[in-house]
């Protein structure tokens, strides 16, 4: 068995643009995430974070390179690879008319959970995210914070080994952010590998063991957090350095 939860080798992702040209969103990147690691993937808007995630999860097509999830090829052994992944995307890509209990019931089914086991997992996840009261409320009628909770609950309903979170705390209040940090830390302590993208650099500094920074589709830094900040600078200082910016102004 591989010691890595995720191995990305020479990944390229291109998008067609008007005029027959191609835009390179991810430019030949390689990195790996160890089992049980809390990995932060940072970058500006349009840097290539979501494109990378889409390639890992099967939402996007890979233009070049190779991705392995717990040793399974993300394209050839897609069933095994995807069973191990739970994804919470940045956007609310949910059937807005469905109720949380229906959303989790069906998604658990898509991932092959038998009904009995599924119901036990739904009960557990509802409890974990404090969603019991809102199980029968249509998604569109929930507040932003509860919508985000449903997104995260959906990501872990099938008990995946690798949890991919694309800006999970964007737009949530401070209380919920702390609550989500607690849940993510507990999940990581229980052995789950977490792949997190965020714009909140203090969030990455607080939660992640290792950090990758991507700019213009290329990885410009990939280090242990402890190694990165041993010079006394914060993750934010390093991020701004790679972005060519300075604190308190350009």
């Amino acid at each position: 068995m591989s010691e890595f939860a995720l191995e990305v080798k020479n990944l390229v992702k291109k998008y067609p643009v008007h005029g027959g040209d191609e835009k390179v969103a991810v430019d030949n990147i390689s990195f790996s995430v160890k089992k049980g690691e809390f990995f932060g993937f940072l970058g500006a808007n349009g840097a290539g974070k979501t494109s990378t995630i889409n390639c890992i999860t099967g939402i996007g097509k890979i233009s070049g390179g190779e991705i392995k999830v717990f040793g399974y090829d993300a394209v050839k052994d897609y069933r095994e690879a995807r069973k191990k992944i739970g994804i919470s995307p940045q956007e609310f890509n949910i059937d807005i008319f469905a109720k949380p209990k229906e959303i989790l019931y069906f998604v658990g089914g898509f991932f092959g959970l038998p009904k009995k086991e599924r119901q036990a997992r739904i009960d557990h996840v509802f409890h974990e995210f404090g969603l019991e009261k809102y199980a029968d409320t249509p998604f569109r009628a929930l507040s932003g914070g509860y919508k985000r909770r449903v997104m995260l609950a959906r990501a872990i309903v099938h008990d995946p080994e690798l949890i991919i979170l694309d800006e999970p705390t964007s737009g949530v209040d401070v209380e919920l952010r702390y609550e989500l940090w607690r849940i993510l830390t507990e999940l990581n302590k229980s052995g789950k590998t977490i792949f997190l993208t965020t714009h909140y650099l203090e969030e990455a500094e607080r939660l992640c063991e290792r950090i990758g920074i991507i700019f213009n589709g290329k990885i410009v830094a990939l280090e242990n957090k402890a190694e990165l900040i041993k010079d006394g600078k914060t993750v934010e200082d390093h991020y701004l350095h790679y972005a060519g910016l300075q604190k308190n102004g350009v």
Partner: protein
Amino acid sequence: MNTIGLYALIEYEVSKLWRVWIQILVTPWISALLYILIFGQIVGRRIGEISGVSYIDFVVPGLLMMNVMQSAFSHTSSSLYFRRFVKNIEELLAAPLSYMEMVAGFVTGGIIRGLVVAAGVYAVAFLFTATSVAHIFLFIFYSVSVALIFSLLGLLIGLWSENFEQLAIPQTFVIMPLTFLGGLFNSIHMLPEKFQWFVKINPFFYFVDGLRYSMIGISESNRTLGFVLIFALVFGLGFLVWYLFKKGYKIRT
């Protein structure tokens, strides 16, 4: 094969029937009631018999087939388009489901809706006439295979559409006219001879006529040609839809 996943997708598709059941189920049943009342009872009495059966018995199979086609098509086209529109298709793409299983899940939902709506229309018709089924296996074959064809067509339109207007175009400009011109309300012999060729090249004619034969034993078409057409459409459309899913046409970035 991910049988639990496929079953969950079918359950999900079928669950949509009950969300807006008045629009999905009651509306076509009321429309069918009005068609049967006006064309079957009022106009039909003046027309008399066609090929030895009452006009209402001649019309009912066409109404059933029209509802099968429209319901199956509406279900898959709107379901897939809505999933694309809110990016909810990503939920399926990230799951351990094959493209064949995704297509099968959508299509089964479409077939079930088509058959449920048709069963209601049959029940409505039963209030006015002793609707019969002369050949039960043919009746099932035509109902299911045509529902399958229109579910697949619905998926094609659900993939192709860029907005709600495009989603509605085929229903208004293709399915409805070809159904009405496919012998739904009239025998082909009621048309002037020089226009009969137009009905014979309309594939919908073979669907309506096939179901009519299975119910009242009267056929005006070449049924062998009808079978060939149905099998060709099932396999041709099935392959095309599967291929487009596999290529990620408008569903994968």
